[in-house]
């Protein structure tokens, strides 16, 4: 499994397709965490929202990097399409973790402000929730499920918008609480309770992607 993750990571890094979403994220975080951007929980909520969109893009990039024929060779070498998909998810998760670090640290670097003990954990949980949802959307909108990239883009935008803007969706619920509090300790229990929802969505998306891609091949 380690070898597969290393290979997937190497092809992703060499193809440099990860750069655009990472730069977009840095730009977004730079804007959201400038001066006068208010209390830290609100900033982290906004950064997490941007990370959802960027994690979706990153996941699609990780999958698109490998040509279907190369992927077929890898599947034969790894002896299972599930393991190849798992490596894809692992690499996407590593990249999403990188976004999380950027999203948490950059606001503190750009404009130093008081940090409470609960700020970082609450922000990290919000990022992880959005990262897992972003990877989930990226998986079901990848080439493994959609042949036509235009349709995939439209569906990805619709799903990301729905996840972020629908009242009652986990990120939306969490963001509203984070935006209206200056003490992150208040939202910590909610953030902790919502993370499993994100991970469950990721698991369901991985199963859907596997079933569809295997049926299609």
């Amino acid at each position, binding site marked *: 499994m380690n*070898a*597969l993750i*290393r*290979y997937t990571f*190497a*092809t992703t890094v*060499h*193809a440099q397709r990860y750069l655009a979403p990472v730069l977009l994220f840095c730009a977004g975080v730079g804007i959201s965490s400038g001066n006068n951007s208010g209390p830290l929980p609100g900033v982290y909520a906004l950064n997490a929202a941007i990370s959802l969109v960027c994690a979706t893009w990153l996941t699609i990039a990780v999958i698109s990097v490998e*040509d279907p*024929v*190369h992927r*077929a*060779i*890898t*599947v*034969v*070498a*790894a*002896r299972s399409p599930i393991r190849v998909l798992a490596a894809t998810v692992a690499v996407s998760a590593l990249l999403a973790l990188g976004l999380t670090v950027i999203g948490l640290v950059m606001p503190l670097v750009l404009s130093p402000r008081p940090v409470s003990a609960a700020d970082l954990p609450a922000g990290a949980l919000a990022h992880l929730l959005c990262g897992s949802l972003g990877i989930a959307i990226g998986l079901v909108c990848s080439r493994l499920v959609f042949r036509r990239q235009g349709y995939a883009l439209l569906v990805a935008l619709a799903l990301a918008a729905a996840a972020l803007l629908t009242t009652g969706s986990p990120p939306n619920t969490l963001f509203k609480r984070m935006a209206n509090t200056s003490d992150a300790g208040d939202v910590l229990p909610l953030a902790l309770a919502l993370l499993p929802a994100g991970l469950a969505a990721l698991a369901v998306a991985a199963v859907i992607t596997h079933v569809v891609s*295997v*049926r*299609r*091949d």
Partner: protein
Amino acid sequence: MLSVEAVSKRYGGGNWVLREVDLTVEPGAVVAIVGGNGSGKSTLLRLMVGVSRPTLGQVSGRPDVVGYVPERFPPNERLSALAYLGHLGRIRGMTGEAAAERAEELLERLDLQGGFDSQLRTLSKGNAQKVALAQALMVPPGLLVLDEPWSGLDADAHGVLATIIAETAAAGGAVVFTDHRESVTRANATRIHRIHDGRIAAAIAPERAIVEVALSRPDSDAEDPGWDDLDGVVTAVTHQGQLFVRVDRAHSDALLAVALRHGWSIDSVTPEKAAS
């Protein structure tokens, strides 16, 4: 033993690509699948290696180590040939060191031009095909599946490929390949299946007469005339100091003349039995 039982395949709601295909490939067999464009050859190979699943029927008895060489090796990979093979070796469970060693050995044997360390995307079609072949051989395969492996390879590599196929079969591996040229399938396969319109025909034994010539060097002065390049040579393998050349009967006399002229000594000449 790999067995394909009553396999039918179609993509989505499209036409049937394969219908009721039955085929078994026993260890040591070299099976050629011939047929026109779009006859379902590539689809059958994809089913055999497990990249694709049958719509009906089943494929069973696939060996643990399968080598798959697709028809075209897309040149969009930015890794170098050595790095790519190293990764695939590790995915197959080799240590990094063993994978690097094996990769270098295979690339040297296949005579990869254009640099072991240059990006795959810069390689020519034939050289990319050599890398595709090498990745399938990183671990000696129990089943080697090659989709039009000769296309794009230069004449030198043709001989090496024929030898690799013979070696894999001799080591107990099953080999399945496609090609549309009669001369190639006749020379390399122990069994030929024709596929037409998604249906596969019963096996035909290739009609050929192959002679195995065993040669040795009485002294080290004997020159190497480049056995693989001689007319009619199917394989040339050195085994325990002796060189075994399998050659088409029509060219065996010429080969013997060349061997004597270069100072080799002929140990035996044995007609090979046509496999049934």
